[in-house]
């Protein structure tokens, strides 16, 4: 949907009702002392909100999209291709936008000083990737499937395998950080972070699909993960009765 502003057409980003997890999600214990108690104040979408950083080629190196080629040898693990399209709610592609990912290695360990559970580090894996979407909003990474790992949220707690995704879109309003999960993970039902998204259909949108067309024979399994950001531009209506 668009609005007019001094005769110019400007985008509008519908509020994300009922999709994002509540900041107060008691099952995820770390939210207890980190969620605001006061009600949020409405911030109208004006110039600072409808604009955002345009981060171009300078942020992305030639091998940043391939997490299996950033060291002297290949990392251990199941080689995978993760690809998809970044879209707005109306299906419009978000071109030339920065996509950043980070993840654990195949044994479920991050290259991070505070991750010290007894699983091996892989000298050939950093776990960081970046790319820009193309003109049609497509991105593509080559990496290895991350392992599940334990955490201390509750007794015998394990995170399902996931890849962190960070997206800018084209406006401050569209900024999104999420996690991509893999199909049929038996840990879903016990994970408070995955289940902090209350709507089942919304939760399913965080799960990549196995993509046989993207799978490359004798080389790597393919997964597709489309990412939908706020935004609706194609409607001709000044005000839509969206429900």
């Amino acid at each position, binding site marked *: 949907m668009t609005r007019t502003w001094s005769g*110019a057409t400007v985008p509008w980003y519908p509020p994300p009702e009922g999709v994002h997890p509540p*900041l107060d999600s008691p099952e995820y214990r770390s939210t207890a002392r980190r969620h605001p*108690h006061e009600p*949020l104040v409405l911030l109208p979408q*004006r*110039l*600072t909100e409808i604009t955002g950083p345009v981060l171009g080629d300078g942020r992305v190196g030639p091998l940043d999209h391939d997490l299996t080629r950033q060291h002297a040898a290949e990392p251990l693990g199941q080689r995978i291709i993760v690809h998809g399209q970044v879209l707005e709610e109306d299906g419009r592609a978000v071109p030339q936008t920065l996509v950043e990912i980070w993840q654990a290695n195949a044994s479920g360990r991050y290259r991070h000083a505070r991750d010290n559970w007894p699983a091996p580090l892989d000298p050939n894996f950093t776990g960081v990737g970046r790319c820009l979407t193309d003109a049609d909003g497509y991105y593509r990474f080559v990496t290895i499937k991350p392992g599940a790992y334990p955490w201390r949220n509750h007794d015998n707690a394990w995170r399902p395998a996931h890849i962190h995704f*960070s997206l800018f879109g084209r406006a401050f309003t569209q900024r999104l950080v999420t*996690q991509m999960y893999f199909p049929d993970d038996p840990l879903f039902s016990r994970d408070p972070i995955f289940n902090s998204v209350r709507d089942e259909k919304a939760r399913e949108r965080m799960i990549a699909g196995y993509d046989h067309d993207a799978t490359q024979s004798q080389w790597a399994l393919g997964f597709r993960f489309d990412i939908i950001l706020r935004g609706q531009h194609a409607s001709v209506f000044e005000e839509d009765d969206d429900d």
Partner: protein
Amino acid sequence: MTEPRAMVPERRGLTPSQTVGPFLHVGLPWPDGPHVVPEGTPGAVWITGTVYDGDGVPIPDAVVETWQADPEGRFDHPDDPRGSARSQVEGFRGFGRCPTDEDGRYAVHTVRPGSLPCPDGSTEAPHVNVSVLGRGLLDRVVTRIYFPGDDANHTDPVLCAVPEERRHTLIAAPDGDGFRFDIWLQGDRETVFFAL
């Protein structure tokens, strides 16, 4: 309005937000992240602060991101209805990103933004939009930094919509040559956060 629904594009469900988790430092920091403007830019200042939880404990696993207009109040962005304008400030990125350190501190190096016109003819006082992401935050929280002693603050439509007794949480404090802006996620000193 009863237009035929078929004319309305099919609306796709949004991808939900998830926390950046405790290992955000693996993926999010950039070497030049805190530099909204390059070192040595005339008039540049450091905005520094600490991010605190509801117990008043500094948070070492958060990221503070900033977005702002340039000193002329312009954005180099195609959706600005005044037209995209490349900043006169050499190397101005508008965007800053700084993970908090072991003591919960962040810092961004920037220039003071200009004021901005609103569609109703009013003016927004100079401000910096802020996103805070972190472990224990399932979605970002959004706040704004305003600058102390700016007369435009008194008529800023966003500040005026905030209960008066909480407005001070959005105004940075002078700190040497720069400014200090602490962020309290919860508690008696809780910062005002916005829904957008």
